């Protein structure tokens, strides 16, 4: 699960977290008792129709501003370690 979440965890953290998350999941499992057959899911509470705007080009964030907070930059782009370092 930690790998899926892209989180490095120590053995110790894994142990504590497994215990804490089990307690939370036990509580959460109570929703399994409800009869929810035929109930539609709600992902958004307020009725909305698609918010559309005219498809016209407009200026975006200038490159130097977009890069200003980056930990590492090269050739006008974000620099990251190689996937096969």
């Amino acid at each position: 699960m930690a790998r899926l979440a892209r989180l490095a965890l120590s053995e110790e953290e894994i142990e504590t977290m497994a215990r804490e998350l089990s307690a939370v999941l036990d509580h959460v499992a109570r929703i399994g008792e409800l009869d929810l057959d035929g109930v539609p899911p709600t992902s958004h509470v307020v009725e909305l129709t698609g918010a559309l705007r005219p498809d016209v080009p407009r200026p975006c964030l200038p490159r130097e501003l977009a890069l200003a907070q980056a930990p590492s930059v090269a050739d006008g782009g974000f620099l990251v370690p190689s996937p096969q370092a």
Partner: protein
Amino acid sequence: MSDAEILTLTASEALAAIAAGELAGAEVFGAYRARAERDREAGAEGLNCFTWVAPETGADGSPPRDDSRPLGGLPLAVKDLFCTEGAPSQSGSRTLEGYLPPYTATAVARLTGAGAALLAKTNQDEFAMGSSNENSAFGAVLNPWDRARVPGGSSGGSAAAVAAGLAPWALGTDTGGSIRQPAALCGIVGMKPTYGLVSRYGMIAFASSLDQAGPLTRDVADAALLLSQMVGQDPCDATSLALPEPIGAPSAESLSGVRLGVPSELTGEGVEAGVMEAFKHALDRAQELGAGIEDVKLPHAPHALSAYYVLAPAECSSNLARYDGVRYGLRADTQGDLLEMYTRTRHDGFGAEVKRRIMLGTYALSSGYYDAYYGRAQRVRTKIAEDFQRVFETVDFVVTPTSPTVAFKLGERTADPLSMYLSDYCTVPMSLAGIPALSIPCGLSEGLPVGFQISGPAFSENRMLDAAHALEQALGFDGGGARV
């Protein structure tokens, strides 16, 4: 006017004095800036409300000279997770330490456009995940009523700052109770509007289908005033909505003809005796003002917390995927490959609670468990919204204690995440239903403030503020004792 006199004024009263030419917005800004700066400099001796305080002159935080605008140059404290150009916006996280966003959140831009001056950024639980403000990378905030206790969370810095008179009013956000619960625990007014009323653009996201900005203020009139300048549709947030009518100043003095519903599910087991006593005292006052009190049923409310702790972590696990050390924020120093950079960065940058919720959300969304957790929780959400719709056919508002307990001691619940989550028991159902709810102080228990929560149908803000105002006047709660 002396600084001590300025401190006694609500924001609305200060604006009236400014309009009458008795006071300048810059004077109010100066008085509060000095107080906020002292708290910041006091470190552990202070309340630790702020992560940044505006400089005296010059920089972007300096007060505007135009007092004629609706908010007249009054200072405003803003929760750290709102992006503010030129001021650090860190969402209480090590990951975003020192982060300077390239733009300002719409809610903040609207308020400064209306004449508010950015006074400070307030401390909060990391990425708004917490109910005690103990999850901040920048240290816990202390409750001005009792420094050994938490101010609540996640908008704990905003609530403590307003209660302590370090800011006249503040902006917070509420996902499952993060405005209402700290407002209750600090003895001030806090309001979560209908989902969509305030733009989320520039709010550092936690759970997007629930996050909503709102005011934390000394009284209901101030809450209405601040809210009136924040609301409105925003082309940058496709889920934002236009309010059918503008937010007005509350004026009601009676509750004649108003029907209040008391749900047994949120007023029974788990609510402290002293909290129930203060709640019932407020119900008596409401009855004297002409309100009808009725028992109502929210049969699915006891399951709200379970659904919430699936839905919110699921959304958070997705939203927080962006903190990968590439475009902004912390990057771990590693010699490894790209994947190792991601995992080490996220290990070093996130605190324990954020990691817990990312793990919980990742699990709930994973193939094989999706239907049992996320799918079911979304169906529970439907049932909870239906419960409220049914109840609002017979009553105007649903009222409950805001928090089942008064402010608890620092460290008391950190070892047991579930006990921490339970402090949102009375506020989470309204969040899942997307309806507006506010908390007003209704008395003390063990010398600590108790919050009274009023919730109503979507877009009932004006009626709700009127009812809250009438009750507030009758209760006559005095929060002056917490001002330091």
